């Protein structure tokens, strides 16, 4: 009787937790390989075709028109000199934050649930930063001269202005892109070696190159673990500084509504808010559309991310309120006017929609463990949060720019070609994911196996307990 009960408890744990449900190594490797190299269905090709078409029209063609015609085809005007381009830049940098948060912060804190989706999250960082970088270049009047922002030696001894927050921004984003790409690559090495040993043809050549001759000896593992540890700790301050510096583009300016000291942490929390929302959507899509993923990505993962989303939503609400309080308390006449314009102006519907989808809906749904473990429900919340965070940036950039200290110039901004370009960046982001799912192992197999090795059942009297041993 007790034995059966004990057995039931174990089975219950197994079903729920990936870490307690180990499969033989070879089988797990084959599952990941099959999900990657298996013959793509017609759905895959359709997705590639549609996304490729959107990228070609909305990104390549529209950008060409924008460069050839000038920014007149966009909606930017006086006083909204910055529009949706900057909204998209901040939005994509925000998306990219969740990747680092999941793969670095959760790794440092040894959160075991992170293991199967660190790869998907890191890809989000790199792909998101590509879109952010493109959006900021779209916004420039003479993008063909953008290399002037780089400190490069030249005959005229001209140097970029390091007083400008835009220069800080450029350096911060470049640093983040480089370090996050390296941090994506390091944990990929053992998986590349795994794929190398199990593939033929062009794949073999690619994986062989990327695996850097990794054989899995004890020395190689030690080096790799050290490198990943160093990177995990080093990339956390980079991640925090990037979005703080992005917020300084606004906070360092002499504009009502922008000149707010709370913007740094407020932007970081906002970034995590949208990033977590995006991460959960990615997980739901991977789980629904790739082979064998229902084994790796389970309800417990949605539950864990759902909890994080709830906490981040509460933190965001606090900072949102705090930002309003601090600005209102400043007593500046123009700021007061702007704050009223936010909720009572022509774009007030956006302000209320932002609060509903960023705060009300997550709080109403994510408190319930059952609801937040349901992939379609929690990913719908994730999509809504991203819409809300896009609205938030839209309110901060073009809507706040509408009100300035010269009432004669007040005029509402109407987006033009920016919207096409925004859709183009979104399509490219998804397209990169779709293509990556066929080339890069979406699940870091070694990380899952490592976690499973550390977990075991122990019996204390009649009670079955889960024990996790320290690996390092």
């Amino acid at each position, binding site marked *: 009787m007790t034995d059966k009960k004990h057995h039931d408890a174990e089975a219950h744990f197994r079903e729920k937790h990936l870490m307690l449900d180990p499969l033989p190594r070879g089988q797990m490797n084959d599952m990941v390989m099959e999900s990657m190299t298996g013959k793509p269905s017609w759905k895959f090709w359709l997705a590639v075709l549609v996304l490729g078409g959107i990228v070609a029209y909305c990104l390549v063609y529209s950008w060409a028109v924008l460069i050839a*015609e*000038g*920014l*007149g*085809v966009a909606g*930017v*005007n*006086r*006083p*909204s*000199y*910055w529009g949706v381009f900057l909204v998209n830049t901040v939005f994509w940098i925000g998306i990219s934050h969740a990747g680092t948060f999941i793969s670095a912060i959760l790794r440092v804190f040894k959160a075991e649930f992170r293991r199967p989706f660190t790869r998907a999250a890191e890809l989000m960082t790199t792909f998101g930063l590509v879109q952010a970088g493109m959006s900021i270049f779209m*916004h*420039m*009047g*003479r*993008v063909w*001269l*953008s290399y*002037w*922002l780089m400190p490069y030696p030249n005959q005229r001894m*001209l*140097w*970029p*202005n390091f*007083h*400008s*927050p*835009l*220069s800080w921004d*450029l350096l911060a984003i470049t640093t983040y892109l480089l370090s996050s790409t390296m941090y994506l690559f390091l944990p990929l090495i053992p998986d590349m070696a795994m794929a190398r040993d199990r593939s033929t043809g062009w794949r073999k050549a690619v994986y062989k190159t990327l695996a850097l001759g990794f054989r899995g000896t004890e020395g190689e593992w030690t080096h790799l673990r050290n490198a990943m540890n160093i990177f995990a700790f080093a990339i956390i301050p980079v991640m925090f500084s990037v979005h703080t510096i992005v917020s300084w*583009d606004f906070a*360092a*300016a*002499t*504009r009502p509504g922008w000149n707010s000291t709370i913007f740094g942490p407020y932007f970081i929390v906002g970034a995590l808010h949208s990033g977590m929302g995006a991460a959960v959507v990615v997980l739901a899509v991977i789980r629904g559309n790739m082979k064998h993923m229902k084994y790796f990505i389970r309800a417990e993962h949605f539950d864990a991310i759902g909890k994080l989303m709830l906490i981040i939503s509460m933190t965001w609400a606090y900072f949102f309120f705090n930002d309003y309080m601090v600005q209102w308390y400043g007593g500046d006449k123009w700021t007061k006017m702007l704050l009223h314009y936010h909720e009572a102006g022509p774009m007030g519907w956006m302000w209320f929609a932002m609060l509903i989808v960023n705060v009300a809906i997550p709080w109403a749904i994510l408190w319930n463990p059952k609801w937040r473990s349901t992939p379609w429900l929690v990913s719908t919340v994730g999509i809504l949060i991203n819409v809300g965070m896009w609205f938030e940036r839209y309110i901060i950039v073009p809507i706040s*720019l509408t009100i*300035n*200290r*010269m*009432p*004669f*110039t007040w*005029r509402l901004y*109407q987006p033009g070609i920016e919207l096409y370009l925004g859709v183009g960046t979104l399509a490219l982001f998804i397209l990169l994911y779709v293509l990556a799912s066929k080339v890069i192992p979406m699940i870091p197999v070694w990380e899952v196996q490592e976690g499973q090795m550390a977990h075991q059942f122990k019996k204390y009297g009649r009670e079955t307990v889960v024990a996790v041993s320290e690996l390092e």
Partner: protein
Amino acid sequence: MIKLEEVKMSAEETGKWGMVIDQDICTGCQACVAACAMENNITFVGEKDSGYGRSMHWIRIERFWEGEYPEVKMTPNQPMMCQQCGSAPCEPVCPAFATVHSQAEQLNLQVYNRCVGTRYCANNCPYQVRSFNWRDYERPEPLPNQFNPDVTVRRRGVMEKCTFCIQRIHKAQDKAKSEGREVVDGEFTTACAQACPANAITFGRVDDPESLVSQLAKRRGHGVKHLEELGTLPSVTYFKGG
């Protein structure tokens, strides 16, 4: 930490060119706007873009109404152009050093061929007086025949703004130098001041107590510098209600 007095001191010491605008005699006729556009090769934006907030004038006449209809009271016309701040918010934010301070003339310069079009300077300008070239605008005939050869023509993607007609300043300085003398007050003036039929705009050296601008400022008293509380140290003084 720089103290406010020090900033003011340095502005008093080094401020050079300035303007005095008498809003009481400004009729709002827009002659200054037209003259500025012709002098500085400002492009013709067209009705549609102009209506959408893309007008490209380096000087504009602001009109405001006070009260609700029918009890409407019009405030004096307010010509607004680059205030040539002594401590300009537009300057530090440009990542390419395209907007810089001229140490010699104490003016804010816009280096057109260095501008990459981030438009940060325009966002940070509290006076909203910067104009951006949103497109390469067509100039209808016969406008292409009246370009001022002393002023660069700007292309799309470049920021521009009032320069206090720096080409005229340089011309006058070159002439005076070749004749071995100093520039005399009133020898030249900006296009807007020259065109104003009511003489509402006066331009000259603010660091010379004998110049007309300094005399006018002293005589009228109670001059206002716009948004002075931001510490921008503007060079344009406004008079109203004298």
